[in-house]
């Protein structure tokens, strides 16, 4: 099964460095809006989400501009000439792993050619390479459901 980048909820502290590092390596700037990985805090769970390279990715057929293709290694490539940033891919992604660049192209993790920069930079070693079946081991759903209080 294909491996992708995911975060171990027990280790991820939500520092967001992965986003900054990604935007630097891919776009040459520090700006999390241009990152191919995104962090989010759900309840008490900090999660970093990048493309999971699904077996039948819903984003590919949904793209009205036919800008997305899936390579054999699972990576979804964005044809920047065709992509107009409409955001349908981001809409249909079940994992919230696609973002739209402010200049209107889809941002999808390409694994940096197999040696992802964010994984190397993660200060708490929370970013790991896993396959779809291994996700439950690292995702603390109980933390996601906790609330800080009613008022």
């Amino acid at each position: 099964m294909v491996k992708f980048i995911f975060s171990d909820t027990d280790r991820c502290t939500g520092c967001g460095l992965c986003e900054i590092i990604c935007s630097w390596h891919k776009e040459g700037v520090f700006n999390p809006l241009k990152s191919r990985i995104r962090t989010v805090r759900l309840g008490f769970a900090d999660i970093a989400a990048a493309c999971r390279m699904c077996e039948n990715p819903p984003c590919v057929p949904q793209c009205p501009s036919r800008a997305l293709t899936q390579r054999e290694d699972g990576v979804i490539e964005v044809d920047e000439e065709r992509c107009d940033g409409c955001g349908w891919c981001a809409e249909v992604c079940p994992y919230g792993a696609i973002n739209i660049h402010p200049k209107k192209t889809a941002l999808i993790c390409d694994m940096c050619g197999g040696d992802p920069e964010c994984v190397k930079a993660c200060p708490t070693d929370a970013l790991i390479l896993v396959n779809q079946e291994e996700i439950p081991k690292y995702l603390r759903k109980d933390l996601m459901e906790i609330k800080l209080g009613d008022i």
Partner: protein
Amino acid sequence: MNLSKYSIRGTIMRDGMTLVVDLRSGSIHTKKDEGEREYIGGGLGAYMLNKRIKGDVDAMGPENVLVITSGPFAGMPIPAASGIGIFSKSPLTGYFGEDYLFGAFGNQMSRAGYASIIIKGVSERPVYLYIDDGVCTIKRADELLGLSPWKTEEKIREAMNDRSLGVISIGQAGENKVRYATIYGDFQYSGCGLGAVMGSKRLKAIAIKGSNDLRPKDPTTILEMYKMLSKKMEESFVDDLDWAYDARDKLPANNFKGVSSDSDVKKLIGGLKERELKKVSFQHCPVACKTLCQSDGIISPITIGGISIGLLNGIYDPDTVIKAEHLCYTLGLDPRSVAVVAAFANELKEREDDIGFDMGFGKKEELLKFIEVISKGKSIFSEGIKAAAKKFGAEDSAMHSKGAELSIDTFTDENIAFGTAISHSGSYQGGEDYDTSNLLKMMMVYPKAYEAYSKEDLYRLYAAVGGETDRERLGEMKDKINDIKREFNIRQGWKMDDDTLPQRIMKNFSGEEAFLQKRLDYYRSMGWDEEGSKGERE
């Protein structure tokens, strides 16, 4: 890495714009002020506040302003430096009020391009500010009233459909103008009663989003230093629970009257550690700096504030401490102040004063009830320890500096105690060297990263982000900021006797005489006269 493919063009420091919001008239504009451009981060805040508050204004009246500045490193991958400073005349001390919060707000503010935000006037209706890059909107906050800061954050993020927003907000205590109400953001709380200033302006929250790229002058140095500093921070960082455990033979008890026993502290801290749920950090902080603890379905970050509530009030039961700190967060109270105010009330009760509360050291439910009642803003205890001590004629039992309730580390660490005594705000967070701590503050680096950063690191990073001021002038600026804050306080009625500590702290260290000598030496080192004022320095 091959940098040549990127177009790195010179310095892209933030534009240095000031966003000015007048809540009374609803006017919003941006401006640039040349005088302000020489100052950065913490210095800018001090300069701006000093310029705007001249006379003796009511800290909770329309003339007081709230100044927010972002640090020069915010938004950059620089460890624990995503800071904002919040400055205002403190309703708690009547003097210079300042505190620093780290995380998403600073990063977003930096990308939005603002060096500072000034909030003036009082709004007729409860509102919050929503800043989206160059567009600032004043929005109705009627539906947010009464909510806890974290619920307020959640509601605003939901309403704007953006989970990444930087939000700072107040709780009920701020709305009720409790003088030690806090501004909350990313599991941190501010001191100096800044939440009461926001509350007095009927400003429930500020949410900000910035989308601009940050292009520092020398990103390679920044990324290299990130690794080095992160490693140093991991090695040297001590969280509040570990700090308390390590200091267990000298922590205060019962309103600083004595020392907590080793076994009691072990029971409390050990119990809290057993209840640890998870550690979290704020954005761009490489170490997990806050511990979340869990008890009976209640989850709260546990900090020195919660630990103080326990120690100073004779409560070594971890479950009550978790509930108490959770209550402070929910209501928007500074737990460090709550700890001291409650301990003071307990001491009054012990000597049979009629305080209108059923209290007593070690009484758990009564303490939780007390916290709820004082958050309503109607009790004398909501006015801060100094006002309460005056009312009850119990100044000797009131543990504060300039009206700000003392943190328990003033009891264990002579440097912190002295730093608190000579501080402008009545509190000190930093390390042994005041000069380095002041530089960290000016650059808005998390005070707990003190051990990781050297002055040299700060100067190098400042040059790498594109700062044009050389180190000599940065050093001068740091000293000038100290002068500015002192000048502000003198105008507000500060006297040398305000730079002191309660006897219970003083006798813990070298005594009053040694303290006075140390204070005199410090004044001289700052170029001040024997009475601690600037004298001819200007």
